[in-house]
């Protein structure tokens, strides 16, 4: 019972979604599904917040190593939620709504939640993102080594494209004559980059996409036919 009902639910709604695509009568189902999904996720997120609190409260109560950091996480979480849900420091956008103190946008410039977003959230997140610049360098240094044919192709293409990206592509004029009309824009390396991008990159991605589509079909069918129920806890 505990497994059968969910599998039936999954198959039923799944097949319904497929039919809805072909039936204008049922098209609204597909649109509603997105909405419903957002609602379920949001409620699930509250559950997630609770488990996050439990997780860290347990660390604190067990006095695990680094429990202080758990306290910081809990504090940051609590303050953010309270400040954001109470819309602290937010004022209504228009005069007409002045007697609706909670009508302003929650992320209004100048509000306390905006401050947290602007000066805590956004700088840390974008700096984490910026770390990628360092990691591309170290990955290129370590991994792009001519160990076999595949690796040679990988690194030679990467070198050509890297060279083609900036004005350093003109280094090729040192050993290749410029075009007869003297234009510098038709240097072979820039052309080559463009050619690789248009043909091989596109077709490599295309083949992967076609394969992925078939993989998705098979995986979906596995779910709809109840062949794989590991996401529900597997077979009993």
């Amino acid at each position, binding site marked *: 019972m505990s497994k059968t009902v969910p599998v039936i639910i999954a198959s039923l709604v799944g097949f319904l979604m497929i039919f809805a695509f072909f039936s204008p009568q049922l098209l609204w189902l597909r649109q509603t599904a997105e909405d419903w999904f957002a609602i379920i996720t949001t409620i699930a997120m509250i559950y997630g917040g609770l488990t996050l609190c439990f997780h860290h409260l347990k660390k604190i109560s067990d006095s695990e190593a680094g429990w202080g950091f758990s306290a910081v996480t809990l504090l940051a979480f609590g303050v953010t939620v309270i400040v954001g849900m109470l819309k602290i420091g937010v004022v209504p956008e228009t005069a007409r709504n002045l007697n609706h103190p909670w009508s302003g946008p929650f992320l209004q410039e100048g509000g306390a939640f905006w401050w947290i977003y602007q000066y805590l959230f956004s700088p840390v997140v974008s700096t984490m993102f910026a770390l990628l610049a360092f990691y591309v360098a170290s990955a290129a240094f370590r991994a792009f080594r001519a160990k076999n044919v595949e690796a040679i192709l990988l690194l030679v293409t990467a070198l050509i494209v890297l060279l083609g990206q*900036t004005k350093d592509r003109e280094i090729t004029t040192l050993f290749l004559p410029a075009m007869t009309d003297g234009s510098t824009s038709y240097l072979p390396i820039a052309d080559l980059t463009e050619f690789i991008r248009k043909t091989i990159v596109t077709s490599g991605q295309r083949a992967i996409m076609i394969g992925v589509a078939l993989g998705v079909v098979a995986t979906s069918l596995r779910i709809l036919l109840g062949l794989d129920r590991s996401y529900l806890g597997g077979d009993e």
Partner: protein
Amino acid sequence: MSSSVTILDRLNVLDRRWIFLAMALAVAAPILLGIGSDESPSPPTKRLFDRLEELPEGSRILMAIDFDPNSAAELSPMALAFTRHCCLRRHKIYFVTTWGTGVPLLDATIKTVVQSEFGRGDRPYQYGIDYVNLGFVAGDAVAISQLTSDIRKARSQDMQGTSLDSLPVMNDVVSLQDMQLLITPSAGFPGAKEWVQYAGTPYKIPLAAGCTGVQSTQLFPYYPDQLVGLVTGIRGANEYESMLASKYPVPYAEMSKRPASLRGGPQRWAHRLMISLIVLGNAIHFANRYRRSSHS
């Protein structure tokens, strides 16, 4: 021989933090020292530049600043470069924006270029004679088609509230069809696409556009038939600045007047670093192979 072996051994166990440090320097040093990089012009950029060069002095040019602070990083350098070029060629400039949020950027463009760089000297650019700020025209695409049929219907006054009829620069100008060129650095809707559809193509007014990198695929089909030129992203802006610099070295070769070229500096050095890292990595690889084969 022994020293080369120790170098190889060291390189084999090279701490990746040295690579991190090198990358930090490759990006930070050009920013702090103001080292930029040129870019060789691509045909769509060069065509706009040549068009502005060919137009006779005093031609009428509409500059539509259709972007907001979100895309200013890419498009603002373009707007500055286009405006500088128009001023150098002594064209008459008509500033306008179809974006409500674009007004401050329009003002900034006028202030930085027209007023502070060309507002003095023996032949200063004068408001109302050499240029005018039409400000914000509301109505998106409708505004564009209104400007095309009658500018005064869309805006009867300029930004300061002066009637357009009292401005000498507006004499003989009825609609956009009296312009020799429309230039629009644009970020989205309404933007270059709408200018093509509502002004450029139906009335055969020459039109050039600047766009963000993301948008370029959308606009490239219009070049070269419906767009005189197309400048794409920060790289396109750099191309334009580089052409300005080689044509008018004083004062436009100076890096402080080339915001896009300035951003090319870190890019160029970081790419050079990446290339040398790959080459170095392979040198180590082959040296190791050589050592192994000579030992065995």
